[in-house]
């Protein structure tokens, strides 16, 4: 009963309404759902397991998509240079990419929000120090940050452990290299919000600073964060590909979406276009749909725009 | 009475929203004569600003004029194409908004903004416009105008800024000024200065004015006639003295009664219970009927039009024939 009510309320809500009113949003939601669903369910629905080396046959390499002249119906979107089914590789690769992308963005969002809130709300020295740190960070390319972290981890931990946590190293590296943009945005909005009277009202009640920042200021500064976050998702996915090229990150036998594109890039001139084009399309669809959803959500969450 | 400068007939403004269309202004009619000041009062959300915005053609989308007409000097202006309407703005109809802090572009000097406006509308070259701009600043009482003309808005105090806004609204010498709460953001002492200024300018230049405000004192001081709005309609319109002292419509009466007197202390201020209905839930009949102390059956079914009530016009069945008790 209560559930029914909740569902009814959700369907009746303005957010749902604005959602159904925007065909582009609905389309991107469907696409995003397919992307994420395909990735999450890959082990169950993918026709092959490209990460299982034992199942790869080099003889099957470079098969064009099924509809092409020498296509193999077994491999709908063709195979790559190792004989991996491109369709399955996309699904499995998207798993890696999404994991890295989402976690990295989550990490940078969390750091960025924390730093931005603290800097904006507390001001003074905290602000100056945090923003200088952000400046310093901004001068370092992501790749170098990742190399540094990887180097430190490598030096500190035995290699077996290092291999197991390679993925997390990548997530961490990408995550911490993007936080300043979030921090700056959040700080800017926080500076505006903290002078609003509802924040002062909360202070009169005697709530702690942390609690005011989290429960009052935070929800009001999330809008722009959402938009940058969605833009950053694509960036994180691509950064992962670059890092795996540099030997930091997931092994090439478990290629991510970005790695697939990078590998396929070598075959663009030789006519084996499907190796890069299909993962490329998958990535575009993923990033595009997530971004469009982000745009919509920002508008939908803003009561002023309803 | 001469032909009115501005005439609004049966104006209707709608907001299409997801849950049906909101009617923000319904059947609003009034006119302003040459040199006349019409005060507009009423509860927050009654549609005062909307009326002003409709006249200068600056309704915020998705709001739109859905019916009625607006005539300026006998010429219909509500259906003009954008470029035509633009030429009227500033030149024929000036506007003053509530907040002097936000109505001036912070990035331009006040002189630049004045000159820009004048050059757009009047056959002046920038040098002439500059000279005129200084004149205007002097006229609105900015001391050392020839130096202050190159100052930025933030370098002025609130009161001075509002004077600049007034100069801006007047500099192309419009015939009508729509002033939407020009003094609400100012404190009492400056408020008095601004009102005095507006009044004297209007008198000197023969400008008509629509003055929207919450402040009855300002209305009483400044306006010739006053229109009382409630829930998207005009419920009463008449000469200031009549409406303020002997309001005909029960809402107007309640409103006037709520004005806190300066001269004495009341134990309990007179108030109108309840609140104005939201636009999406306006009751049938007279919109005021749920709050009206004098409500009777007809009020709940039939909507009253403006009708003569004493020296004013009021939209109230009390003044129709066959009302149960006369006010």
């Amino acid at each position: 009963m209560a559930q029914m009510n909740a569902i009814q309320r959700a369907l009746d809500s303005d957010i749902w309404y604005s959602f159904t009113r925007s065909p582009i949003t609905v389309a991107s939601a469907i696409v995003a759902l397919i992307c994420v669903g395909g990735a999450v369910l890959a082990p169950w629905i993918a026709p092959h397991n490209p990460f299982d080396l034992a199942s790869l046959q080099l003889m099957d390499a470079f098969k064009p998509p099924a509809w092409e002249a020498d296509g193999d119906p077994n491999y709908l979107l063709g195979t790559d240079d190792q004989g991996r089914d491109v369709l399955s590789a996309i699904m499995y690769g998207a798993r890696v990419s999404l994991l890295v992308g989402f976690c990295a963005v989550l990490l940078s969002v969390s750091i960025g929000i924390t730093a931005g809130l603290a800097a904006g709300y507390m001001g003074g020295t905290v602000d100056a120090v945090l923003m200088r740190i952000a400046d310093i960070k901004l001068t370092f390319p992501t790749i170098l940050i990742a190399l540094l972290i990887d180097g430190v981890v490598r030096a500190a931990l035995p290699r077996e452990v290092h291999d197991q946590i390679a993925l997390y190293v990548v997530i961490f590296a990408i995550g911490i290299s993007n936080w300043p943009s979030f921090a700056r945005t959040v700080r800017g909005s926080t500076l505006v919000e903290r002078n609003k009277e509802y924040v002062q009202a909360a202070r009169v009640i005697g709530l702690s600073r942390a609690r005011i920042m989290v429960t009052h200021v935070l929800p009001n500064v999330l809008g722009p964060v959402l938009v940058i976050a969605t833009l950053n998702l694509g960036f994180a996915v691509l950064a992962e590909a670059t890092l795996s090229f540099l030997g930091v990150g997931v092994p090439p036998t478990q290629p991510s979406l970005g790695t697939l594109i990078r590998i396929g890039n070598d075959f663009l001139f030789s006519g084996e276009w499907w190796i890069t084009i299909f993962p490329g399309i998958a990535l575009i669809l993923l990033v595009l749909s997530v971004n469009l959803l982000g745009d919509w959500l920002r508008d939908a969450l803003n009561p002023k725009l309803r | 009475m001469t032909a009115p400068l501005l005439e609004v007939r049966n104006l209707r403004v709608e907001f299409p929203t997801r849950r049906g269309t909101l009617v923000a202004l319904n059947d609003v009619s009034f006119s302003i004569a040459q040199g006349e000041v019409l005060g507009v009062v009423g509860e927050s959300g009654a549609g005062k600003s909307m009326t002003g915005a409709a006249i200068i053609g600056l309704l915020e989308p998705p709001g739109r004029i859905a019916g009625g007409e607006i005539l300026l000097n006998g010429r219909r202006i509500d259906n003009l194409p954008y470029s035509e309407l633009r030429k009227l703005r500033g030149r024929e109809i000036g506007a003053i908004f509530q907040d002097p802090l936000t109505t001036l572009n912070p990035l331009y000097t006040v002189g630049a903004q004045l000159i820009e406006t004048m050059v757009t509308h009047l056959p002046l070259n920038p040098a002439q416009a500059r000279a005129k701009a200084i004149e205007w600043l002097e006229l609105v009482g900015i001391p050392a105008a020839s130096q202050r003309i190159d100052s930025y808005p933030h370098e002025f105090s609130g009161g001075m800024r509002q004077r600049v806004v007034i100069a801006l609204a007047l500099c192309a010498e419009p015939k009508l000024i729509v002033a939407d709460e020009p003094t609400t953001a100012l404190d009492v002492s400056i408020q008095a200065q601004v009102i005095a200024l507006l009044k004297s300018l209007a008198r000197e230049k023969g400008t008509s004015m629509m003055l929207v405000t919450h402040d009855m004192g300002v209305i009483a001081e400044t306006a010739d006639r006053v229109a009382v709005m409630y829930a998207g309609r005009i419920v009463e319109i008449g000469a200031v003295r009549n409406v303020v002292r002997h309001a005909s419509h029960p809402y107007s009466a309640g409103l006037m009664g709520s004005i806190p007197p300066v001269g004495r202390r009341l134990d309990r201020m007179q108030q109108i219970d309840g609140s104005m209905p939201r636009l999406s839930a306006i009751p049938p009949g007279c919109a005021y009927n749920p709050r009206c102390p004098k409500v009777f059956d007809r009020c709940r079914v039939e909507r009253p039009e403006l009708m003569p009530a004493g020296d004013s016009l009021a939209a109230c069945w009390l003044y129709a024939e066959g009302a149960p008790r006369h006010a």
Partner: protein
Amino acid sequence: MFAFIISRILQALPVMLTVALLSFAMFAYVGDPVAIMLGQDYTVAQRDALVADLGLDQPFFVQFAKFVVNAAQGEFGLSYRLSRPVAQLIVERAPATLELALCAAFLALAIGVPMGVYTGLYRNSWLSRFFLTFSLIGVSLPTFLIGILLILTFSVWLGWLPSFGRGDTVNVGGWSTGLLTWSGLKALILPSITLGLFQLTLIMRLVRAEMMEVLRTDYIKFARARGLTNRAVHFGHALKNTLVPVITITGLQLGAIIAFAIVTETVFQWPGMGLLFIQSVGAADIPVMSAYLLLIALMFVTINLIVDLLYYAVDPRLRIGRGKGAH
């Protein structure tokens, strides 16, 4: 003004120092220059001699202190890979990168800003939607793929533009520029597009968001009420007010463009600092890498300063100290 610049420079010092420390520290991990320099044949003694020669056997902070002292004098030593003074290499390469970066930034601004204005003004037109969606496609493809696709189209298929290099350059006072020759200009087109695409999207979205915000403000409404032309309102008043955030982001992004030109320079064999850097990473050429990073940091600090000065130019409110109690 002078005081302001000095204070910014003082603030920049700790930033630079930290960057120096970090860049210095990180190279302990990116690869072993000794192994690379020795090549296929060496003895243990040779190896130790080299380590001592390079000063790699000294304590970390001694190495660092030396590094900072030298760096402050513009002395970064000799490149391990090319055996040439790093400062000389950087000076040779900087013009290429700067021209590319500025061109990309210019492209991003020249296209991104108008597109942002357009999409901000006509939020729902199909052209706006097209711009928004299409630009997102641009950012969701890796730079190297975009570069290759552009080369494939414009160099290989159409044969219009060169696929690599800077074309002919002219040396103007020690600065080798490709902007003055026809082939130099042609060579600039594809790399600038590749590099600028992401920034273009960003700037467009930013301007759009800011425009939408600014268009809701009172002073825009007031500018319209004064009857200013559309152009004056949109570009004179609205756009100028969006500039502060746009300047910030563009400034930050210019730093990012320079820092991230690495991929673009590799794809187009553009002889800039990025190419130098990536080759140095391959060879663990520590002096070049650290000099590069410091240079980027310096560039960043400079850009930040310029951005702040631009603020001053754009926004008069920032010109006075915080003293005046704005209310």
